[in-house]
């Protein structure tokens, strides 16, 4: 099954929940309304897409004319585990704002738990039924979401060690030279 076939198959059933299709073949991405994302994921899960390959996000805040700031992408695979065959792949994408993400998909694919935590950790995109979201990669003391385009590139939040933006120069002046002398 290619993305296009899936799109054509779902179109009569879901109507305006599907906004369109971008790309072709394995690269095809179905663009979805956020409100209908959950229903679509359930439908695809029951249609045999038994593996969530990836859930990721892109920050489009430096682009003009986008419907929202972030775009979530779900990549699904229909895998025949016994034969080791891929029966089809599909990608879904939807635009979301900061903290108003779609409902969690972890009851459909348990691995979504960690992927959603990663999306929240890196981008600050929340999921509507997960109010107690916890970081997964960064430490608890970290504040902010480092892959957002407005996170200052030189900002450091070390747990130990110098905290200013030019750690090495400062270290050299204050510590190393007296030690060498």
């Amino acid at each position: 099954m290619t993305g296009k076939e899936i799109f054509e198959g779902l179109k009569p059933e879901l109507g305006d929940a599907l906004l369109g299709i971008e790309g072709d073949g394995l690269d095809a991405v179905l663009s979805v309304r956020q409100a209908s994302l959950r229903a679509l994921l359930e439908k695809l899960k029951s249609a045999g897409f038994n593996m969530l390959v990836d859930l990721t996000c892109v920050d489009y805040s430096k682009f003009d004319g986008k419907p929202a700031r972030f775009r979530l992408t779900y990549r699904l695979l229909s895998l025949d585990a016994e034969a080791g065959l891929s029966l089809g792949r599909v990608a879904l994408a939807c635009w979301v704002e900061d903290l108003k993400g779609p409902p969690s998909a972890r009851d459909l694919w348990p691995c979504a738990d960690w992927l959603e935590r990663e999306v929240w950790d890196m981008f600050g995109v929340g999921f509507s039924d997960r109010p107690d979201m916890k970081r997964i990669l960064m430490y608890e003391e970290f504040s902010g979401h480092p892959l957002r385009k407005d996170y200052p590139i030189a900002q450091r939040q070390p747990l130990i060690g110098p905290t200013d933006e030019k750690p090495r120069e400062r270290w050299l002046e204050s510590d190393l030279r007296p030690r060498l002398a």
Partner: protein
Amino acid sequence: MLNAGEGFLTSQLDAAIGWARKYSIFQYPFVTACCGMEYMSTACSHYDMDRFGAGFPRFSPRQADVLMVVGTISHKIAPVLKRIHEQMAAPKWVVAFGVCTCTGGFYNNYSTVQGIDTIIPVDLYIPGCPPRPEAVLQGLTMLQDKIQKQGRKG
């Protein structure tokens, strides 16, 4: 080897201790990233770090002399590295293996420590991404020179 103000026996003792220490290095490999492959290559029989008396990795910091920090150190692991260093008994030496540990390398970003010398003292830097085994062995011999010169100090 005679130093002014020190007796013949003392300076000879220094030389003997330095000699003993430099050829019996027990290393603690703190391996976090791809440099580890190069470290393993150097340690194994093809390049054979054991020729230089450093063929005995200890996986407890309490039994090690040289802390080899091999690979990128993130801010999240930095407290662990500092603690490992504190757990080592003196005399101890630290080798920054690879450019990530020397300066942060090309990871000039939110997650990476910009050189482990911002958190622990470093005795020897081996740059390279990753350093070739020859560079590691050269670094090791330089560290041995340093250990020899330190004698009982250090």
